[in-house]
């Protein structure tokens, strides 16, 4: 376990071996040194973080109990409310909003467990993005090659965790926006079951598809963050009132008895050699020889696309009418097109969603876990507009999520598991479980981590090595 992992920091702080204040001070120094290259943070809440850390240190000194994340730094995608900051959602328009009066539910829950908020993170405008680019704040950059995309829309979250600025970040995932940056930046990402974690206090995109979830550098940290955030919340009508189902207690139970299959057909067509290599490595490590087809996956992706375009446009219609010039042009033009989609298309897509859900749930009577690529390729270059998919050059923004969309469409829990390919950029594999079985997906991810197949690569091996070296040579 890394000395900078959340689990290690929390154990040390709780035992009095490290002060939360020192952890936060070192984190602020890391952010100051590395963020100029990564552009992950849009706001750093240093004063708040130091005050929170001081309170934790005082609690430890007084012998009072501290939480499972005591002293652990985290940061949140800037569509998640942070008291005192405007909730930008990656936009210029939202800069006119008053500062958030209160923290989002998930921020409150992480801090209740002792975690320390360090700031807000860059993202694609209004979360309609798979690139991590942002017309207003500039792109967040890939920690393993700063000329490449971080992935979106939780690009700052991927860059901050992949670049080891913080051990835990929160992102949102409507069609893949946690899993795509996890893949490009080489970190673990959890998109929980739709409705598992409260979205209260976050700026929406497509309410019927929106999820929040954590990104981390190891499965233990991912599970700790996830466990701290579970629980009913009347402020989010979609949030489940099921009892919390902590994943940490069973994380190391192994995979004995689990039936693991590989998604075939749609999920192999078009995947790059790197994506297939990562998938095959993971399948081999799990001894998963069975291939299974998710029925009508291409139609599922199409339906998710149509619902997203239409519902997203409905959300932004007032702003499209009054302030269209202030949008990122790439986002605006998609939203205007979305506003023109006939309602009949959307209604049919929502009907198909029910059919598809029932069909996929029947598969989970035969298997416990399904493996699929997270992205069709490793991180493209920043500014790239197209890529080759299945032998055809296609628009990049619309197609990076082809493997994530059919999964989030019906709210299945997924852990994106990073695989470091020899000499290359990382790429993730989706570990998909039945609804409400996040703990199973996390167990499988942990088994892959334990056998060395899955890991968050050291960012110092990438192009930010020089800035890391400067930091290490000058920090106390």
């Amino acid at each position, binding site marked *: 376990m890394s000395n900078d992992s959340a689990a290690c920091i929390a154990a040390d702080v709780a035992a009095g071996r490290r002060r939360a204040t020192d952890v936060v001070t070192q984190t602020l120094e890391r952010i100051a040194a590395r963020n100029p290259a990564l552009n992950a943070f849009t706001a750093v809440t240093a004063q708040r973080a130091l005050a929170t850390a001081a309170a934790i240190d005082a609690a430890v000194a007084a012998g009072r109990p501290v939480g499972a994340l005591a002293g652990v730094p985290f940061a949140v995608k800037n569509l998640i409310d942070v008291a005192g900051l405007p909730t930008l959602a990656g936009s210029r328009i939202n800069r006119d909003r008053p500062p958030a009066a209160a923290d989002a539910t998930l921020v409150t829950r992480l801090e209740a467990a002792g975690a320390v908020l360090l700031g807000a993170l860059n993202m694609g405008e209004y979360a309609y993005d798979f690139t991590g680019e942002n017309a207003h704040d500039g792109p967040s950059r890939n920690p393993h090659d700063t000329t490449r995309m971080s992935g979106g829309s939780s690009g700052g979250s991927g860059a901050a965790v992949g670049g080891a600025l913080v051990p835990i970040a929160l992102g949102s995932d409507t069609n893949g926006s946690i899993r795509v940056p996890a893949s490009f930046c080489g970190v673990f990402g959890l998109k929980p079951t*739709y*409705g598992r974690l409260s979205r209260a206090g976050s700026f929406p995109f497509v309410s*019927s598809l929106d999820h929040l979830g954590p990104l981390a550098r190891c499965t233990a940290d991912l599970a700790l963050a996830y466990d701290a955030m579970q629980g009913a919340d009347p402020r989010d*009508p*979609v949030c489940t009132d099921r009892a919390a189902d902590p994943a940490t207690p069973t994380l190391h139970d192994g995979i004995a008895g689990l039936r693991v299959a590989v998604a075939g057909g749609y999920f192999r067509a078009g995947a790059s050699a790197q994506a297939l290599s990562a998938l095959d490595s993971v399948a081999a490590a799990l001894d998963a020889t069975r291939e299974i087809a998710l029925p*009508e996956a*291409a*139609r599922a*992706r*199409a*339906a998710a*696309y*149509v619902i997203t*375009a239409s519902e997203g446009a409905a959300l932004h*219609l007032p702003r*499209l*009418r009054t302030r*269209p010039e202030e949008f990122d*042009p*790439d986002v*605006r*033009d*998609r939203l*205007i*097109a*979305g*506003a*023109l*989609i*006939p309602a009949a*298309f959307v*209604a*049919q*897509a*929502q*009907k*198909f*969603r*029910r*059919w598809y*859900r029932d069909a996929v749930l029947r598969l989970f009577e035969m298997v416990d876990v399904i493996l699929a690529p997270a992205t069709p390729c490793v991180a493209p270059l920043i500014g790239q507009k197209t890529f080759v998919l299945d032998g055809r050059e296609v*628009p990049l923004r*619309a197609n990076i999520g082809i493997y994530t969309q059919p999964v989030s469409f*019906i709210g299945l829990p997924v852990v994106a598991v990073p695989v470091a390919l020899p000499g290359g950029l990382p790429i993730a594999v989706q570990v998909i479980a039945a609804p409400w079985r996040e703990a199973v997906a996390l167990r499988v991810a942990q088994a892959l981590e334990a056998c060395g197949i899955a890991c968050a690569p050291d960012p110092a091996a990438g192009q930010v090595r020089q800035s890391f070296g400067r930091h290490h040579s000058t920090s106390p």
Partner: protein
Amino acid sequence: MNDMTDFDVYIDAGTSLLGIPVRPEWRAAIRQHLGVSFDLARLVLDFPLPDEADQAPVFRA
């Protein structure tokens, strides 16, 4: 109705009725995105579903 002229007529009428101002230089991108959505929607509409099929979004009173 998926040829370019139809889309242009539809974009003009639709954005006018919705009150969305559109600059001429935005039109090509809007048309391209709309075309993708219509193509993908056709894939969904071609799938036979019973009239009784319920929609999927969650609503709790």
